[in-house]
């Protein structure tokens, strides 16, 4: 697989970076402190067409390739991880529609998502079903020309502010989550839907992570995605692609921390010389830079492979997410170290970046789940996989 950055990619990066540095970075500390969703930045990103990059032009999107979408997420995350989730979750929540939706479903919902008029969330995780997706319990019962949804979802990013949620619920509990789950498009204005609680989090604090309740929510049949029983397949296909957004976010967080560390070390004087002139600091910065670059290039390679529709794309997207998430954690931790005491206080951005980085090792599949995905592909390639999937269930 080869990929190449084009002049258009460079131009895109320059444009998004300018916007992120001038308009997003100055807001980052305040968003973290206030824990309020940055509606103004959502509007700004919508106005600049940056919420529609994953959608086809006929639905009002800008149809950037995977590398272009990664660059957008990365450059926003470099300034503020919370804000980068706005385009990332717009893609995550809509991927079930993009992958499994009918033409009618797409033309009804995608234009409003591409313009940023509506936000969308991805409703899969439940309190007792995290990595073990197949143990989902939420129910969808047939009722006349539609379904009645009952149950709860937890840890749903943007769940409390989205206009639309793609929800996964059991239509056939006997068959279990793997074969008995179906996917639905739910408008959050529907009676019976509520988001009673948002979590208090270590990082990405301006991005509301909500608990969702469904109390007899009526969903018309035309809002079911694919056939009954397709839910698990749709959820996995979504996560196999969406986790690239998290990889890109992690690369951006790492780059932001690296840039902050270099700037600080060049400015700070101790023992009569700039901190950046100490070889011990240079070695740390060099490790941070090379690891970030490696994560970035793996993310771009994975993006190109997803665009090419390769059969083994989960191997690549999980590898990118695993490497990028761990890199973000390591680089932000080292950035705090470079800044010393100043790195530990909220006057400088790196402690926030370190808190933000942690989530990239957890959501859209923990790092352990990524390893299971990678290993399963690895065994398949080597022709030594078991007939049935690994004992750990079917990891996202």
């Amino acid at each position, binding site marked *: 697989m080869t990929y190449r950055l084009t002049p258009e990619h460079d131009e*895109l990066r320059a*444009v998004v970076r300018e*916007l992120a540095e001038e308009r997003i970075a100055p807001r980052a500390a305040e968003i973290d402190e206030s824990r309020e969703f940055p509606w103004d930045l959502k509007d700004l990103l919508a106005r*600049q067409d940056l919420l*529609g*990059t994953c959608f086809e032009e006929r639905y009002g999107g*800008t149809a*950037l390739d995977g590398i272009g979408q990664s660059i957008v997420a990365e450059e926003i995350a470099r300034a503020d991880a919370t804000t980068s989730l706005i385009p990332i979750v717009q893609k995550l929540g809509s991927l079930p529609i993009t992958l499994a939706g009918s033409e009618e479903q797409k033309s009804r919902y995608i234009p409003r998502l591409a313009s940023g008029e509506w936000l969308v969330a991805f409703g899969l995780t439940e309190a007792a079903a995290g990595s073990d997706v197949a143990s989902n319990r939420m129910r969808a019962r047939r009722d006349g020309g539609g379904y009645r949804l009952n149950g709860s979802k937890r840890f749903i990013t943007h769940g409390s502010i989205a206009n639309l949620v793609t929800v996964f619920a059991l239509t056939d509990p006997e068959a279990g989550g793997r074969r008995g789950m179906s996917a639905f498009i739910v408008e959050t204005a529907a009676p019976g839907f509520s988001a009673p609680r948002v979590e208090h989090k270590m990082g990405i604090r301006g991005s509301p992570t909500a608990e969702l309740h469904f109390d007899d929510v009526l969903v018309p049949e035309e809002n079911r995605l694919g056939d009954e029983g397709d839910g698990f397949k749709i959820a996995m296909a979504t996560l196999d692609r969406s986790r690239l957004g998290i990889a890109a976010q992690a690369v951006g967080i790492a780059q932001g921390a690296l840039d902050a560390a270099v700037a600080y070390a060049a400015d700070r004087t101790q023992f009569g010389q700039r901190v950046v002139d100490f070889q011990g600091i240079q070695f740390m910065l060099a490790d941070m830079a090379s690891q970030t670059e490696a994560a970035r290039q793996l993310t771009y390679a994975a993006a190109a492979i997803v665009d090419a529709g390769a059969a083994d794309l989960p191997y690549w997207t999980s590898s990118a997410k695993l490497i990028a998430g761990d890199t973000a954690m390591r680089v932000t931790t080292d950035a705090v170290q470079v800044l010393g005491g100043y790195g530990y206080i909220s006057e400088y951005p790196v402690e926030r970046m370190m808190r933000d980085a942690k989530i990239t090792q957890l959501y859209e599949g923990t790092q352990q789940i990524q390893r299971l995905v990678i290993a399963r592909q690895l065994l398949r390639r080597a022709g030594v996989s078991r007939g049935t999937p690994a004992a750990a269930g079917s990891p996202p």
Partner: protein
Amino acid sequence: MKLVVCLKQVPATTAEKRYTADFRLDRRSAEAVINPLDEYAIEQALRLQEAGAVDTIGYLSMGPEQASEALRRALAMGGDEATLVTDDALAGADVWVTARVLAAALDKLAPDVALMGMASDDARGSLIPGAVAAIRGVPLLSYGSELRIDGDVARIRRLTATGHDVLEAPMPLVASVTDQVGEPRYASLKGIMAAKRKPLDTWSLADLGLASEELASRSRVIEVRPPPAKAATERIENVSADEAAVKLADWLAARKLL
């Protein structure tokens, strides 16, 4: 109603600038951007078009070939077409030559309003709007905080020490605006994509019917030097508040500031 924004590509303010042996800016050395003060003229033009007061917006720049990047960036913000005047004979053009060339290009483009920023970020001469208006023999409305078009007259508001003046003139004319017109917009992604398909013409001096012999610069750069270094900052550090106050008072007294 046709409006042409004249813009200049300049080195970014933050860029380190190097000069050639004959004291011209080495343009390869510095990141180039649209002159930030011209972005306000672009914003003003786009607002007029959105309000329905202007039908067509063109951009005009004189510069090396790479100045087409600035024109593309302007087209990404909005507007319809762009023209770059570029010619080897124009390297190192002074105010007089630049104004002659822009005036000739504007004669050919024939806009109702030629709109400019109040100054360029690199040279800061602020002479071009007046020079172009004089050469073309049209009115000049300069330093507007807002430009309006009403029938066949254009009006600007110009801030003064005590309030503002409103000046009006019949079109065609030249106008310049300040940074008071409103924050320039960012180019949107769709704008950037659309800009690639908008017409961008390149004209040489011959296309303007100008001969390079008529265009000898009348001014000459004798020397280029960095601004004088500021004296080192004196810091009062690692002393008690009482001691610091005494030192500060002494410092001010020594300069007869207390």
